[in-house]
């Protein structure tokens, strides 16, 4: 179990950084987590995303999941929405692609066009 001090330190630091941001100002990442997504590697995709967010100290990204959306052949699917610039959907994601999408799209705002699902 995590130590209480460790948890409380994280809490204090995070609350400080969160400031007054509202939910709608946050970047959202949604990963397809139906059976099709899981079988295609969605778990590793989420683990990589969380790891990358931790490394880059990105605290106001909301990561969530959705079930099967009917594009099973394109799984793992990752939808990214950045306030003010709409939603895009990436298909056939893997840990390497995730790291690049976070660097190029989430951090720098430029979608990685070659992996987008048309």
């Amino acid at each position, binding site marked *: 179990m995590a130590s209480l001090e460790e*948890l409380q330190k994280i809490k204090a630091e995070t609350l400080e950084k969160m400031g007054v941001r509202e939910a709608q100002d946050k970047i959202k990442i949604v990963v397809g987590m139906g059976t099709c997504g899981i079988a295609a590697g969605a778990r590793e995709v989420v683990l990589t995303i969380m*790891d990358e967010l931790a490394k880059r100290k990105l605290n106001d990204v909301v990561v969530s999941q959705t079930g099967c959306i009917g594009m099973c052949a394109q799984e793992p699917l990752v939808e990214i929405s950045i306030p003010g610039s709409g939603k895009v959907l990436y298909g056939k994601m893997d840990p390497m692609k995730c790291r690049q999408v976070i660097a190029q799209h989430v951090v720098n705002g430029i979608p990685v066009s070659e992996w987008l699902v048309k």
Partner: protein
Amino acid sequence: MEELSLHILDILENAREAGATKILLWIRESRQEDVLKFKIIDNGRGMGKEMLQKACDPFATTRRTRKVGLGLAMLKATAEACGGGLRLVSCPGKGTRVEASFQYSHVDRPPMGNLAGSIGVFLVGTQSIHLRYIHRKNGKRFVFDSKAFLKQAGGLSFQEPRLFALLLNSLEIEDKD
């Protein structure tokens, strides 16, 4: 699916889609008794008899009932091929219980795999679900309670990347072998 922990993630996701607010994940591994069993019990909306019978048939499911489509069929096939089986008990409005068993030493039994990853990934998207996880492995007992963990973190969510990393660490069982 190559790992039992992926099947476990799949069933946890079923529970989430069924609107569960409380889930118990119970796992027992015993080399001595040559058995590996897991149970996932949720308080979601459950299934009626007709649905329950179809739940393990990959071809009888429609898109609307997809939430228990292919996943359980694959798990059933795997469990039965490994000297075990799958049991489903469900009651509409009360919840569902999925139990799978395997012969521990069976050559075809998939490895448990990254169980901490599966549970962690499930919890990221499901702040309001109370998950209790009990794992008995070769005589040792491991217990995790998501509510207690979040309470310790004082209102932070699993979405906070560093808390998530801590969560993954907390879910690791020492006796690896």
